[in-house]
């Protein structure tokens, strides 16, 4: 699959999911188990993305400037800093550590 094909397929899949909420029979989507698992899938995928983006280098695990950068982001989120500040501070932390190293 080319990158363009993947982009368009992913767009179609995400739109289909959005539209399904308007079209699907309510009874099915309102089952407590379905609602519960859907919320937890979001949490699990986001947590996995955090771990992989922080630790993966290809198919190896690697501790580098991303780890302290993520720690800075965590402290700022705990202090209720806005999204942009959190993301920018993480980037600056990693960039500074790499410049020093």
């Amino acid at each position: 699959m080319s990158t363009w094909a993947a982009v368009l397929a992913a767009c179609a899949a995400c739109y289909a999911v959005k539209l399904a909420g308007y079209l699907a029979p309510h009874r099915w989507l309102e089952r407590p188990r379905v609602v519960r698992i859907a919320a937890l899938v979001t949490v699990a995928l986001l947590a996995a993305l955090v771990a992989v983006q922080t630790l993966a280098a290809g198919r190896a695990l690697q501790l580098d400037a991303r780890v302290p950068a993520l720690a800075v982001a965590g402290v700022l989120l705990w202090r209720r800093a806005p999204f942009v500040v959190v993301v920018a501070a993480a980037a600056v932390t990693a960039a500074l550590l790499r410049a020093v190293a």
Partner: protein
Amino acid sequence: MGAPDEIADARGGRARDADRAAVLRQALSIGVATGAYGVSFGALAVAAGLSVAQACVLSLVMFTGGSQLAFVGVVGAGGSAAAAVATAALLGARNGFYGLQMARLLRPRGWRRPLAAQVTIDESTAVGTAQAALRPDRPELARFGFWATAGAVFALWNASTLAGAVVGDALGDLRRYGLDAAAAAAFLALLWPRLRSRRTRLVAAAAAVVAAALVPVLPPGAPVLAVAVVAIVAGWRGPGDAGRSGAGGDPG
């Protein structure tokens, strides 16, 4: 709550406009905040090897930030196209549940329904449902909040994606600027507000450990997908104490 409103309505348009203006201010401020996030998405997309046009199509057509960021994350890590598509779709699953809530509030007909579906995301749903809860007597405020937020976020998200992609393209090797760490921080920021219950914190911790452990074992992109199993196992049984409380009711 009904009586003061009836008085306000009787006084004519002024009070009504003040309510709408407050909702509009909220919508615009959310649009501006997500706009800043759009800049980071655009820059991260080109850093992952996408073209400026591909980054812009993602923001215009996919239009759901978490899925877009996950898609470029998997592509940038060398994952397969199928893994990138599947991760984006799974992360977008929550939009389907938002659609269920918004279908009741909006009751869209004809061409409005496919349009409402396209702009049913975290922000528009949050404002729409919050207004519906705050002002059950004024359902038109919930509808106005949904559409105003959707419009503001759509405009600023797409403009800022283009800006971020163009700037990122010009800067060259973005790893030097710490943008790989920015991607991790962005996912953490999306995750943070969902960690209110003990169950979601446990699931997040387990998912992070499982995904990291699978990195050396599975091809890129697959470890993230594999943790969906963690969510299914954790969510299969309801919270032991109180039936339906906890993660299930979290609109995120």
